[in-house]
């Protein structure tokens, strides 16, 4: 469904002219309905991979390689075609929901905008759908939340809103960029569970970026380990856990906090 072929990304600093290589020729494929966990330490290029898929990499970037979604070259899309693809086929769930929503517009506007202005759904239907979506991600007081402004809601609540917005299009591919990292521990599990459930229900594919190996293993079919912009290992969670091939993967496994150290 998604094919990333030899993806390279380097960013030129506009002030110093220094070029830093962020991604060094990574390739991976994703089957329909599959969830792939992208794990690795900060700065290993996980989020940048997602940004390249969406075409929202930072200014000064130069991207090489191909990214194909069902045979269409995403990097070659322009203008209206690119906009519609972003609106209909892809959905990003970012780390901090408080910076995702426009702080001066009510939450309802965020959802409405995604459906009616980005995807031409009639306003009245988008309105109804907004409350439905919120209830489906476990928000009971959907009307109150729709009228609220982002700063009035907790991070966990807001991330549910973002997930609701992301699944509203029934996109082909969900791009989740550390969706639970900015939340407190109790809501982390809830939000991860909702995301997992919704994805399976609608049989969407997902790339799940995380530095938390255990979380990624729990919600993903396969894991890909990244380091310094390179994909060092890819396999099922069991393979990665039981027989890590790469030295770095072993380090990563051992770096996890353990509840019972003697079991390791």
């Amino acid at each position: 469904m998604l094919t990333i072929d030899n993806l390279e990304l380097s960013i030129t600093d506009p002030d110093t002219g220094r070029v830093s290589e962020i991604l060094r020729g990574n390739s991976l494929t994703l089957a329909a309905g599959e969830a792939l966990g992208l794990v690795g330490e900060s700065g290993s290029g996980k989020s940048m991979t997602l940004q390249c898929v969406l075409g929202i990499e930072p200014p000064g970037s130069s991207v090489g390689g191909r990214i194909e979604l069902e045979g269409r070259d995403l990097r070659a899309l322009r203008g209206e075609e690119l906009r519609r693809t972003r609106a209909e086929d892809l959905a990003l769930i970012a780390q901090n929901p408080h910076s995702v929503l426009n702080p001066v517009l009510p939450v309802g506007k965020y959802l409405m905008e995604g459906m009616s202005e980005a995807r031409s759904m009639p306003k009245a239907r988008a309105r109804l759908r907004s409350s439905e979506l919120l209830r489906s991600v476990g928000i009971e007081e959907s009307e109150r939340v729709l009228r609220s402004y982002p700063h009035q809601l907790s991070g966990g609540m807001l991330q549910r809103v973002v997930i609701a917005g992301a699944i509203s299009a029934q996109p082909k591919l969900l791009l989740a960029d550390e969706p639970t990292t900015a939340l407190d521990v109790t809501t982390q599990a809830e939000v991860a569970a909702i995301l997992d459930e919704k994805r399976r229900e609608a049989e969407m594919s997902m790339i799940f970026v995380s530095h938390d190996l255990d979380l990624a293993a729990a919600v993903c079919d396969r894991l890909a380990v990244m380091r310094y912009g390179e994909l060092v290992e890819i396999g099922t969670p069991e393979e990665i856990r039981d027989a890590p091939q790469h030295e770095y993967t072993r380090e990563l496994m051992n770096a996890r906090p353990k509840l019972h150290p003697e079991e390791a």
Partner: protein
Amino acid sequence: MRYVISRLWSLCLVFVVSSFVVFSGMYLVPGSPENFLVQGRTVSPEVLASIRVQYSLDDPFLTRYWNWLTSAVQGDFGRSLTTRQDVSNLLAARLPTTLFLTLYAGVLVVVFGIGLGVIAGTREGVFEKIVVFGSNLGFAVPTFFAALLLMAVFGGALGWFPVTGSGSGFGGRLFHLTLPAVALSLPSLAVVARITRTSVREESGSDHVLMAVARGVPRRLVLWRHTVRNSLLPVTTVIGTHLAALLASAFVIEYAFTLDGIGALLVDAVHRQDFAVVQAIALILVVAFGLINLAVDLLYAVIDPRIRLGKAA
């Protein structure tokens, strides 16, 4: 609502304190009022005493302040010490010109300042450089010099606009006050354009704008609803302070274009040490500053729900 009440309350406090400063400030000037009234002539102590009684100069300071303030609130600023006219009548005759000039300049600042700033903030290239250069120029050139320049070019050489008088009727005023308003608006316009440009630039790099792009929101909406609208929050504050300052700079412009506004009146009154007129004008300025700032704060609350609704989650 509680926000509005608390803002009104603090505004009243500002008015009381500053009116006290305005009133007492006049007594810090060397010389006493009755000496100015007799204008250097030698008069008998009896005459001086009668003047002091007539103007209640022997009352305790706080009593005089209280009487002045209460009648000022009712629109009575007393009489001019030199022309014996009611100060309120003097002001009423002069105020429209100043207000018109200030509002005219204010509209120019808002429309062209924001307009140019948005254009410069959203596209790169020659136009942006022109706006940046122009705003440096506009800010650096003193108002009175801009006034002279405009008079020479558009009034003198091209002869498009009149350079004196304030005209009559709405159209006449608009026509007569165009050059003064342009001269008056230039420095503020330059600042507003520049801040708008920076603010738009900053906002267009913010996460929520990037996310709107990633969600496939149409470009036009990303620009106006998410970028420009949000970037106007800091601009609002700047515009507020500049609008209030326009009123003060209007005095210089009125002088340069020989307009019959409050500014010219103030300059004359200061020359003749006409206490009552100076106090009244100073008080009006204070009130105008206060009201404009109040309006800006309330407007800010309308635009930004975080102010209106408090920070509580």
